[in-house]
């Protein structure tokens, strides 16, 4: 999948998990930028992303994601 495709597919997942229909995701986005993004919702996000993209991340990958761009990067690699 291309970055754009992933971006498009991720948006509704973010809106769903963080319960905000107006969220626009950006590569540089981190927990600080999204109200309600804490360790609890982060795991919900990861589980939802894994399910939607039918992939499974390693624990190390989950812990090393620094921003949304890194998540898209990882998904691009996995769905290539």
């Amino acid at each position, binding site marked *: 999948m291309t970055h754009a495709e992933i971006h498009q597919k991720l948006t509704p997942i973010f809106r*769903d998990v963080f319960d905000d229909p107006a969220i626009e995701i950006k590569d540089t986005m981190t927990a600080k930028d999204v109200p309600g993004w804490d360790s609890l919702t982060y795991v*919900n996000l990861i*589980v939802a992303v894994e399910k939607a993209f039918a992939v499974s*991340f390693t624990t190390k990958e989950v*812990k090393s994601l620094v921003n949304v761009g890194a998540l898209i990067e990882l998904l691009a690699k996995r769905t290539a």
Partner: protein
Amino acid sequence: MLKNDRSELDYGQLVKKARRLAPMSDPRFKLAILADVSTQHLVPLLRVLFAGHGVNVEIYEAGFDTVEVEALNPQSALYTFAPQAIVILQSVVKLKSGFYNDVGNRCSFVQTRSESIETVWKAIRARTPATILQSTFVLPYERAHGNFGRLLEGDFSGVVAEINREICLRARRNASVLVNDIDHIAGWVGRRKFLDEKLWGLAKSLCAFEFLPDVAQNIVDITLASIGRSVKCVVLDLDNTLWGGVVGDDGLEGIKLGDLDEDGSFRFFQLYLRELSARGIILAVCSKNNDAVAREVFRKHPGMVLKEEHIAVFIANWDDKATNIRRIRETLNIGFDSMVFLDDNPFERNLVRQLIPDIVVPELPEDPALYVRAISELNLFETASQSTLDSGRTALYREQQQRTEESQKFVTLEDYLQSLKTTACCQKFEPATLGRIAQLIQRSNQFNLTTRRYSEAECQEMMRDAERIFPFTISVQDRFGDFGLINVVILRLHRNERRLEIDTFLMSCRVLQRGVEQLAMNRIFELAAKEKFQSVTGRYIPTPKNAMVKSFFEQFGFRRVASSDDGTTEWQLETEQYGPRKVFIDFNGC
């Protein structure tokens, strides 16, 4: 939300619903959770599921892994909160690390761990009467010895199973301690999916998120039962629910209810319902039928497991079902929310759902083989007490005693047969059993001396010709279960020759070596003696499948009087020469 509808248990959907949960009015139900797993993902699910049952729950979450601290400290926030129920949730992962690090004390591991769990209950009980919901541990997948571990004392999987057993045994001795059987849920959905190491690492989650709703629902089920909200009555449709077919159209003989009809599905379903009845669930019938026709099935059909005595209220008429269910409710004087309605017909289900919103109406699958599964999936019959607790305890002791005795028994085959407590019922052909008889005649290949495939109509004909034909069947059951009708014998009475001919002798292979054929032969010679027949004759016609009965007549002392090229042999034995065979079967009938 439809009550107990497992399809509603989607993690993502429930989390969203929890966010939008409208505030509820008091009174609140106060629930505390002590856990060595994280509870943050579970709590929203509990809120929304409790709300679905109209319960406004207030939840206290103790800090991560503070089970003992909270329970043992009289000043802890747990006791200040004053909960009505306390959920103790523990993970096998924690237990595992304890086990692996405790190399020196493996033999006492089960006892010390069970002891410390019980200590927590006792500490709680000293300070509050709150109901305690103790989780079981999910059996681990590691098997250091493979299957052989089952034979070893210190194998971790076996240790976990033993601790679970200890939890149950100890819970029986402690008032208001109920078991939250997480291992059952894990087993049901599959342990390899339930356990999720990554989520344990990331979030100390008990299991994969997709199964947290099942865990939450289980807690809700048990809690509701503990406050008296449980199912008390099951209302049953008849046609195509308790038996296959429509008795009004198909008649008593036409309905499918035998051991082999629909693979015995309806029979299994009835056994399950009888079990519910025995445990105190009231059964009621609500059927669109003529009352006499419906009752006749309960009275006369040999395949019926449920009898009229199991049915508290029996309504068969042509009124609509909602009206009839209201009548049942009035008679029993219970709430609609403690009633379950089971009907194969989607139209009736929807009608009842709409007119009586509180009653639980599960979807039933089209295939009756799946009825018990579909109902079990809903965990409708949760209960927090058993009124016959004392007799239950007596039964436990009795069981244990029986096992001890049993292990010393079975020195000989005779002893074993005797221990089975087999009973048999011998009957002449009857309208209600004709279907099963014809089926057995069509299907039996191995234990079948002549393989004559009589049709149902021919069998019916035989019933009318008592002067020349004596057709009978044997049904068998033992203390482990009911085999149903498994033996068919057709005798021809050659009165002028004073000879009794065994035209057909066949048996289901499920009951070999049990003495049934000996019993049948005894009956045959009793009849011969009674009717003053001089001899009994029979024939073995070989087929590719019936070699097992080649020596059948020989074994009873018959002598061969003729044999032909195709292998057919003819046999004869004088009535007075036959010595009755010893059988270990309690017998009644024709």
